[in-house]
């Protein structure tokens, strides 16, 4: 069982992240909630240069708040600082968007976004829509050592299964469902799911609000 920490991001979150690393925690997840906490990528950059082993992840990034090329660029930039230690956590915005009065985005839109981000990280040309226009985009100078999309491969084949935030099944039941979906639709690939767990996780009560998809931005 790995243990991680999650942080309402602060500019100096690297301090507690470094301490967590020294205490054996394997992951640090940084909130990406713009109206509530500090910028996760700035804080993760500081954590990247001040730690050696702990994995650093967005926890979670919300597609509407960072367009896909910006998110892909930030992940690749972090991967230059901490190769192979970056996780791309993504959700529909139950916190970040609600703090601005918006509801969560559609899971399908999140999936499109993930494909765009991962496509860019695979150095592919992807179709991207902005201001009502669809354009082909890709990183134009990925061979330069400005950021890192190669060490290791940041975008393995998708193991994503995004469970609906409104799922009201038991924690275990929900997990079993995720496993089935992942097996059926992405056999052989890796996925990572998160559920916000209430106090007695296996007694039939679950909040459902914290379930989101998370992609491991590394190949193990």
């Amino acid at each position, binding site marked *: *069982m790995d243990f991680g*920490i999650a942080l309402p991001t602060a500019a100096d979150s690297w301090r507690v992240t470094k301490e967590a690393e020294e205490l054996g925690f394997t992951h640090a997840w940084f909130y990406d909630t713009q109206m509530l906490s500090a910028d996760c990528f700035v804080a993760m950059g500081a954590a990247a240069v001040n730690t050696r082993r702990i994995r650093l992840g967005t926890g979670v990034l919300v597609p509407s708040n960072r367009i896909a090329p910006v998110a892909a660029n930030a992940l690749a930039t972090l991967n230059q600082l901490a190769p192979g230690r970056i996780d791309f956590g993504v959700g529909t915005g139950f916190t970040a968007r609600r703090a601005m009065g918006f*509801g969560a985005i559609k899971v399908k839109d999140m999936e499109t976004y993930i494909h765009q981000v991962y496509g860019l990280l695979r150095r592919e040309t992807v179709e991207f829509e902005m201001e009502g226009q669809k354009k082909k985009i890709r990183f134009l100078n990925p061979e330069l050592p400005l950021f890192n999309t190669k060490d290791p491969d940041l975008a393995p084949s998708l193991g994503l299964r995004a469970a609906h935030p409104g799922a009201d099944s038991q924690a275990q039941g929900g997990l079993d469902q995720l496993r089935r979906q992942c097996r059926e639709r992405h056999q052989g690939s890796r996925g990572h799911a998160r559920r916000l767990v209430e106090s007695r996780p296996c007694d039939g009560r679950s909040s459902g609000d914290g379930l989101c998809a998370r992609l491991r931005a590394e190949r193990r």
Partner: protein
Amino acid sequence: MGDLQATAFALGCVLKDGEPADSERAMAQAGPRAAVMLHRAADEALAGPAPGVTMVSRTRPEMQGYVDLARDFEPKDAPYLQNHRGHLMFVKPEERRFVSAELISATSFAASEAEIKQRIEALRSGGYTQFTIQLVPGHEHALADWARIRKAFV
């Protein structure tokens, strides 16, 4: 399907012997998770639930009490500004009376060290591969408590 990794995300507080779930410390470390239920209930009451997203959140008297309070949040065209202040970070003074020990216990890992270990073991046996504890601003020192819990699973 051994490739799917699953993280259980929680707030909590490792309670000392006899310490109630709404002690000052527990209120600070785990209370923000309980308050999330209040915020959601108010969102639903004031803006309506999102289609397809059904939350069972107004089944407790604390939540209804908070919803009644939230109807007076200002500005009227943006009550979410007050509703979500402190979300997952601190309990707002005006919502504290609704964040009961029972609600904290029901929504977080605020419990004795032994009980927390039992719950995490239940998660592990259920297939979870990671337990992530959220730390609240100003209580980062709670990391030491959770490091002690972690050691039991090494």
